[in-house]
């Protein structure tokens, strides 16, 4: 029976999103989600919807939005192929701890399990790639599921949530009384920090001659950037960043020594095996960071500040695990440690940095060859970019080079697919990041391979007029794979060379202003033009075809075997 106060399930979906203060939905319509789309028509003043050109684009855009804003990204898709197109993004958000709520339509409840048109078991398929998921089959369960979904997505270690709503639940009528979720018994978010662990950690740090701190995205997710800075200010301990940690500490900080991992900096990798106390904050010792675990920091006593209990002792055995929010644990630790400085130890980092400058950076930034390098493009961008410019990168050589040379000064300026390494991530993620704030400078650095995985989102950029600055570093190769083929497969370039379209014409077909740079003498000017342009801009830079990214820790090698060439 329908009472006066009842509304359709589809309206409950939209009102619930509004109640959660969602401002923007990235999505794509289809049969099983049409009632929600119909409802959206009535709410366009309260909530924005962006039509991407592919569901993968929608979810990456939601990721970009979430990463830059710290809010939950929202994504909408239909059943079957719409839902399966979200899977890559879910897996990406899961491994990179990005808060998302994805809502998919599903066939009507009475058709479930019958192989109905566009029926797919998306709850089953997405189970390993979500923090939580649920199928809602009744209208009265919609609002509670969305409330719980938002709570789970944003609390604790953030992650993606998928809510699959059958069509009957969307069209049935029910009461809307939205109660935000504030917690439930099986999911405890707040762990009080163990003061004993802090004490033990402080003692280790006090005794340390060569302490070394590694920070990851956990600092950003935990909003602990200031606490990290205070800790480093007080202790004088050298600090290095993971790929996703970049931005959590300004690179201008005197203790900042560079980047970790396979293509990170020379000193931070090498000296990992020379420190005596290793303090890891909000990072998970990914194999791209550690190299061969059996030869990773064996000499060091490890202190791990981490929110996720399953990460402590997962890859690296720790001396002290400090479980809990690093915003709290860092400030407790700062209080417990003594003022200090490590000029000699820091000097060692600077010495090795000099070696890297001479052996690698000089070539990358001020090349003597005719061909342009990716490094000089990024270093020119540094000259003109805003301090809080957001860098969104795809996956490959350009990603590593952009990360290596981009000058990070502010938090939440590094958006890239870290854990999953998803080609095609950058263009839609940049769109999402830009839509959070039109006035922010969003620079999307992408390869000629990766851009073609989601190039259709130029359409969404056109339609939204998002002023994204797209920098295509075109080496006519799947460059990172080609580099491995050169180094480890006898230069057998098996299926890595690309015959590319005329990207400029393509961008222009979408009404996006485009320019191509092939010579060094027009590079700087073109970058300046791009950055001052009011609106989206497509800059293709033709770079050296067979350049390599160094330093490098080859697979199976130890961090101390980091190579400069």
């Amino acid at each position, binding site marked *: 029976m329908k009472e006066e106060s009842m509304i359709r399930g589809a309206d409950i979906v939209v009102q619930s999103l509004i109640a959660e203060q969602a401002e923007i939905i990235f999505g794509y319509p289809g049969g099983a989600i049409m009632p929600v789309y119909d409802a959206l028509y009535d709410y366009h003043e309260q909530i924005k919807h962006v039509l991407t050109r592919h569901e993968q684009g929608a979810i990456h855009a939601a990721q970009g939005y979430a990463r830059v804003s710290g809010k939950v990204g929202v994504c909408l898709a239909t059943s079957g192929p719409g839902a399966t197109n979200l899977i890559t993004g879910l897996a990406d958000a899961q491994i990179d701890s990005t808060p998302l709520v994805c809502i998919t339509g599903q066939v009507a409840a009475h058709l479930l399990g019958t192989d109905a048109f566009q029926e797919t078991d998306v*709850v*089953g398929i997405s*189970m*390993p790639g979500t*923090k*939580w*998921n649920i*199928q809602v089959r009744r209208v009265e369960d919609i609002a509670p599921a969305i409330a719980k979904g938002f709570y*789970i997505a944003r609390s604790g270690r953030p992650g993606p949530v998928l809510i699959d709503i059958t069509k009957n639940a969307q069209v049935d009528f029910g009461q809307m009384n939205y109660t935000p979720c504030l917690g439930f*018994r*099986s*999911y405890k978010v707040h762990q009080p920090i163990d003061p004993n662990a802090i004490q033990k950690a402080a003692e280790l740090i006090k005794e340390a001659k060569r302490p070394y701190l590694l920070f990851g995205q956990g600092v950003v997710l935990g909003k602990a950037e200031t606490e990290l800075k205070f800790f480093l200010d007080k202790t004088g301990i050298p600090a290095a960043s993971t790929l996703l940690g970049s931005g959590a500490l300004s690179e201008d900080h005197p203790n900042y020594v560079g980047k970790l991992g396979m293509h990170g900096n020379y000193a931070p990798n090498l000296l990992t095996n020379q420190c005596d106390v290793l303090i890891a904050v909000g990072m998970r010792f990914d194999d791209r960071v550690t190299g061969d675990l059996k030869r990773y920091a064996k000499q060091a006593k490890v202190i791990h500040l981490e929110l*996720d*209990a*399953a990460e402590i*002792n*997962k890859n690296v055995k720790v001396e002290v695990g400090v479980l809990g929010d690093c915003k709290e644990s860092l400030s407790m630790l700062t209080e417990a440690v003594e003022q200090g400085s490590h000029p000699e130890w820091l000097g060692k980092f600077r010495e090795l940095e000099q070696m890297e400058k001479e052996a690698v950076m000089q070539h990358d930034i001020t090349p003597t060859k005719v061909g342009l390098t990716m490094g000089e493009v990024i270093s020119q961008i540094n000259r003109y970019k805003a301090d809080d410019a957001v860098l969104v990168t795809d996956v490959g050589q350009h990603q590593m080079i952009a990360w290596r040379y981009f000058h990070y000064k502010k938090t939440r300026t590094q958006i890239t697919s870290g854990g999953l390494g998803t080609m095609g991530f950058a263009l839609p993620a940049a769109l999402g990041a830009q839509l959070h704030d039109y006035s922010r400078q969003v620079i999307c650095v992408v390869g000629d391979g990766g851009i073609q995985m989601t190039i259709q989102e130029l359409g969404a950029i056109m339609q939204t007029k998002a002023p994204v600055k797209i920098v295509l570093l075109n080496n006519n190769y799947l460059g990172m794979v080609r580099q491995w083929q050169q180094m480890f497969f006898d230069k057998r370039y098996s299926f890595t060379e690309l015959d590319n379209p005329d990207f400029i014409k393509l961008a222009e077909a979408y009404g996006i202003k485009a320019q191509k740079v092939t010579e060094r003498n027009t590079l700087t000017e073109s970058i300046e033009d791009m950055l001052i342009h009011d609106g989206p801009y497509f800059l293709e830079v033709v770079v050296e075809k067979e350049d390599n990214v160094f330093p490098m820790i080859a697979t199976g090698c130890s961090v101390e075997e980091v190579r400069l060439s």
Partner: protein
Amino acid sequence: MKRYTIFVITENFIGILNRITIIFTRRGINIDALTASESSVDGIHRITIEVTTSEEMVVHLVNQIEKIIDVIKAFYHEDSGVVYQEIALYKIPVARLDGSLEKIIRQHHAKIISAEQEFVVLEVAGHKEQTQELLEILKGYGLLEFARSGRVAVAKRMRTIDQYLS
């Protein structure tokens, strides 16, 4: 490699078992036996999983299981830390019942829980070694069917389910 019993106390929601088994699949760990049932508390399920693996691995598994949103608590014990029992049923053709089998039934504390025209069903509760021993013997008596449950177990540690819920 050792035998461990993993206990999972969880909300009774659809798909939870799936989420748990995915964790074993990802790590390539075989589940020796698994029992799921309602607990003494309404709406709370209890899952008992038996695995043979290293302690390091069992810690990883338990940590991952506990991360599942709807799982309330997961923990593990070695065999010495639990009291456990398995139940086995043996279907034997009536034609093979004789004095020697009667003796075996008595020796193994088996019970005849069903006697049909053509067969009888024996039941034994015990540890796997015991039920296995009887299985080997009964194979010589024309055993028609055999089924063994997973382990049901309680931990020796003094904690109640309510303590996990609070």
